[in-house]
């Protein structure tokens, strides 16, 4: 076994998801969840090959400006309005290993808190040079980065006066479909964080903290762009060293 101990366990099943760490499906403070939450027990399923495999996307799908929301929707010579920020970090598994080739998709409101979407009704104006979407693929060490403007907070119809803290949505593909995850990144110091009806559906304060990106002065560009560091963790995989059957046989 000694020659195998440094090999990543590529084909084991994923560690069980800790559903107490995630928000519950049914969370009455977030009203829309009331009628959209399954009420029967989930069927527990040891991963089969249908869950352990997943699509992997190549760099060929990426455009030059996919990781630059300041410019990817802007007219030539123009730029989105708002505080310029870099968001960077690593996608890790639960064993702390960086995961390469993760497609990271992100979307957000503009600096005024307005989304470019036909169902959006907030009175803040659209920025003609801001679309709000981007994507990138992690490097060999699991790292990613992109440039954008800091989104604004905005009100939403839940309670009569509920506001979302500033946030960026993230969608992640690992290398198995069981790792599929959508989450949100929040910004250090935002006073709306502790009163957000969506974020506080998460029971554990430590879990909430995992979604709050700190200001990262060492990755700023002086006189140009601030930086926030946001690592995300996808499910880890079991090794198969002592199983008497390999997957799929």
């Amino acid at each position, binding site marked *: 076994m000694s020659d195998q101990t440094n090999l990543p366990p590529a084909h084991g099943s994923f560690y069980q998801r800790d559903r107490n*760490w995630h928000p519950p499906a049914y969370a009455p403070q977030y009203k*829309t969840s009331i009628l959209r939450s399954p009420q029967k027990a989930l069927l527990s*399923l040891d991963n089969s*090959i249908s869950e352990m495999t997943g*699509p992997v996307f190549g760099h060929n799908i990426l455009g030059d400006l996919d990781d630059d929301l300041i410019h990817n929707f802007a007219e030539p010579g123009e730029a989105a309005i708002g505080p310029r920020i870099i968001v960077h970090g690593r996608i890790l598994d639960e064993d702390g290993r960086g995961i390469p080739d993760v497609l990271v998709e*992100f*979307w957000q409101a503009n600096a005024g808190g307005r989304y470019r979407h036909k169902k959006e009704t907030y009175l803040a104006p659209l920025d003609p040079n801001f679309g709000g979407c981007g994507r990138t693929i992690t490097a060999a060490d699991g790292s990613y980065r992109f440039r954008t403007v800091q989104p604004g907070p905005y009100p939403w119809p839940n309670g009569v006066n509920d506001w979302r803290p500033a946030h960026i949505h993230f969608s992640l593909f690992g290398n198995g479909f069981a790792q599929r995850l959508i*989450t949100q990144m929040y910004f250090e110091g935002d006073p709306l964080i502790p009163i957000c009806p969506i974020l506080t559906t998460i029971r554990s304060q430590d879990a909430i903290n995992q979604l709050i990106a700190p200001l990262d002065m060492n990755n700023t560009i002086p006189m140009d762009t601030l930086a926030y560091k946001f690592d995300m963790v996808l499910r*880890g995989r079991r090794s198969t060293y002592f199983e008497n059957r390999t997957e799929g046989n």
Partner: protein
Amino acid sequence: MTQDLYRLKESPSQTAGPYVHIGCTPNFIGIEGVFDTDLGSAMVDGETVGERITITGRIFDGAGAVLTDAMVEIWQADAAGLYPSPQEQRGTADPHFAGFGRCASDSKTGHFMFETIKPGQAPFKDGQPMAPHVTFWIVARGINIGLSTRMYFSDEETANAADPVLARIEHRARVDTLIGRRDGDVVTFDIHLQGENETVFFDI
């Protein structure tokens, strides 16, 4: 005290929200010119091997209302039962088959639709064949963590009866919630988030 396992926790899920289209299907919502095409919008091309089918359906909430703001993703094997994934060790899947599809619910009718092929059989962990199936993942406003389920095929009664995953469903009447109804080339799979016909969702 003991030694530390040094394990990290998976990042907590958060809802995809009402504006998931901006990031995942921007062309669908009219944000054009950023991405050439929406990811997952084409699963097959002219040379894909297999029986062409259309999978369509709607998602219903606990009051029977249709969701018009959901996003559905599917993942399936090719016609030979192989997955187009680097993790697939049993062979090489059809290079003309993506295996992955993504579709936003229609903003008026709530229908999702995938043009794909019928998958072959892949083995369960113990080597038993699983009946042909398509893995579904559903996100939307009000869904705090993506919902996983599977669609099987109504024209595969024998294989379904022998399927090791369907066999685990204790309340047998609920098996029907995972069967897509085939009529010609169209397979209809409605998903119920709650209620009497609540779809069986998986903790995978």
